[in-house]
């Protein structure tokens, strides 16, 4: 009571009640696992003699040297990056196009279309992958006329078949984010442009898109995070296609490595992957923000 800085904080008890539970759980189930993964990744298994008992000891950066030398890991990273470079722009492009169309005065029945486009977001990734797995299958598909000719599940196309599943689920969600920020633009903004004789395309390009850029950036960051974490869809596709291997995406490789079990290496994969995700989304955020506000 006598110390001045103590008196400045009022309602300490209430603050503790409000923040305490979340802080405790966040520490237990976010901070602790991150710390544990980092610690685990510095361990290494040593055997005394060929048949001696295995023992976990401190190995410094041993696991990270293995990660760097692991071709399967970098192959899987390259695969999801290729996936992301194509899928994320396509998905966001379609989402932007649909949002602009729904927002334009030309379109009738915007409410129905909004619901129709958003519906797939209610389908969990696993279920969506099962559905599309059937749709692609050369024998089980309702469209066997097409799927017997085009091998959607072969090694050449399967990555893009998975990309289509992800796009199908998430376009509507991203569209809704962009659409809601379009709705937030006050009408006066358009009036000047309309008086100048600008058409709807012109308004969309020079007025609307710059104004919804923050929303597009947000969807971009979430999409990048999602792409690097791909797991459920390829895991389901392993039932339908032999082309999807157990190291097809980084997270599948983590899962496979942990099942070996080689926990230290799996932890090192996870740490590198989380760092890469962080760096990539952070860089993307900085790059686009600089361009957006210049």
């Amino acid at each position, binding site marked *: 009571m006598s110390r001045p800085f103590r008196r400045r904080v009022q309602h300490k008890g209430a603050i503790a009640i409000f923040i305490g539970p979340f802080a405790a759980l966040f520490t237990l189930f976010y901070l602790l696992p*991150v710390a544990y993964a980092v610690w685990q990744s510095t361990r290494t298994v040593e055997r005394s003699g060929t048949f001696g008992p295995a023992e976990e000891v401190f190995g410094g950066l041993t696991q990270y040297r293995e990660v760097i030398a692991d071709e399967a890991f970098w192959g899987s990273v390259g695969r999801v990056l290729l996936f992301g470079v194509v899928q994320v722009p396509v998905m966001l492009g379609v989402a932007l196009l649909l949002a602009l169309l729904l927002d334009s005065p030309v379109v009738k029945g915007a409410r129905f279309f909004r619901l129709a486009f958003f519906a797939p977001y209610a389908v969990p990734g696993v279920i969506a992958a099962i*559905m599309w797995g059937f*749709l692609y299958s050369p024998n089980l598909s309702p469209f066997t006329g097409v799927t017997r000719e085009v091998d959607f599940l072969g090694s050449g196309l399967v990555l893009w078949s998975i990309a289509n599943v992800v796009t199908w689920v998430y376009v509507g969600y991203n569209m809704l984010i962009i659409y809601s920020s379009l709705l937030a633009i006050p009408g006066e903004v358009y009036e000047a442009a309309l008086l100048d004789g600008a058409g709807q395309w012109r308004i969309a390009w020079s007025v609307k898109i710059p104004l919804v850029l923050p929303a597009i950036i947000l969807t971009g960051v979430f999409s990048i995070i999602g792409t690097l974490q791909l*797991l459920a869809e390829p895991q389901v596709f392993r039932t339908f296609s032999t082309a999807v291997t157990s190291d097809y995406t980084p997270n599948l490789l983590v899962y496979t490595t942990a099942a070996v079990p080689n926990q230290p290496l799996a932890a090192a994969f996870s740490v590198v992957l989380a760092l890469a*995700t962080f760096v990539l989304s*952070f860089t993307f955020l900085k790059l686009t923000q600089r361009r957006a506000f210049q």
Partner: protein
Amino acid sequence: MSATPSSTAYRQSPVSRTVAMLVLGVFTLYFLTPIWWLFIAATKERGDLTTTNPLWFSDVNLLENLQGVFSYGDGILPRWLLNSVLYAGVGALVATLLAGMCGYALAKYAFPGREVIFNVVLGGVLVPATALALPLFLIFAQVGGTNTFWSVFLPSIVSPFGVYLARIYAASSVPDELLEAARLDGAGEVRTFFSVSVRLMVPALVTVYLFQFVAIWNNFFLPLIMLRDESLFPVTLGLYNWNTVVNQVPELRLYVLTGSLVSIVPLIVVFLLLQRFWRTGLGTGSLK
């Protein structure tokens, strides 16, 4: 698209309207056909599945299929659905409460370390949930807690994004004067939160709930790693398991499809009913 789209479309020419409606129509087919197909497939007899028109009814057998899928394997599907409701429905409720309280306190009280806490939580938004799954498994293994309900439930009730959203929303929608007035009336801080502030924060809280609900419902890696006991599975993991043995047990094929339909229909309905909240909430989320 006309040749010079920039200057002619303003008068809403029939051409640009037709093109716009055509584009929307094509995408409607793209988004709804798979769901329609799933619905049709779930109404069919096993034999008709591959032999009749996939996009239209043959002998409608939906009730028998539902009975079949619900009773298959000693009625494991209803169990999975119940588990999913507990993990996602109850989990998201607790997560929303915790995130709402924390975000509110970060917005409305000044105390040392406030920004540090907020920034650490914000960093948590960027940590992919899949990166946590494996270390969580190892931690739960140390205390013998894997393969339990709590091993999936407890990690799911932490929503850093919810804290972020609740803080932004509380800062702009709960006036300080109102809290001062409540204090003058002698109401305690916690009581004021539950009786006054929560009501003002409802749109944000519904959004947090929906986001967390979807995140838990879709979370595949955590239950996949944690759970061995089939009776603890959420419905997604259960259907995934059925699907992996479809080639050995062909009779399961129809049940996988019917089960998928059963698991998504309630979600679609809830989503569409709460769509209003999605839009307000998503708008708040992207306002930085």
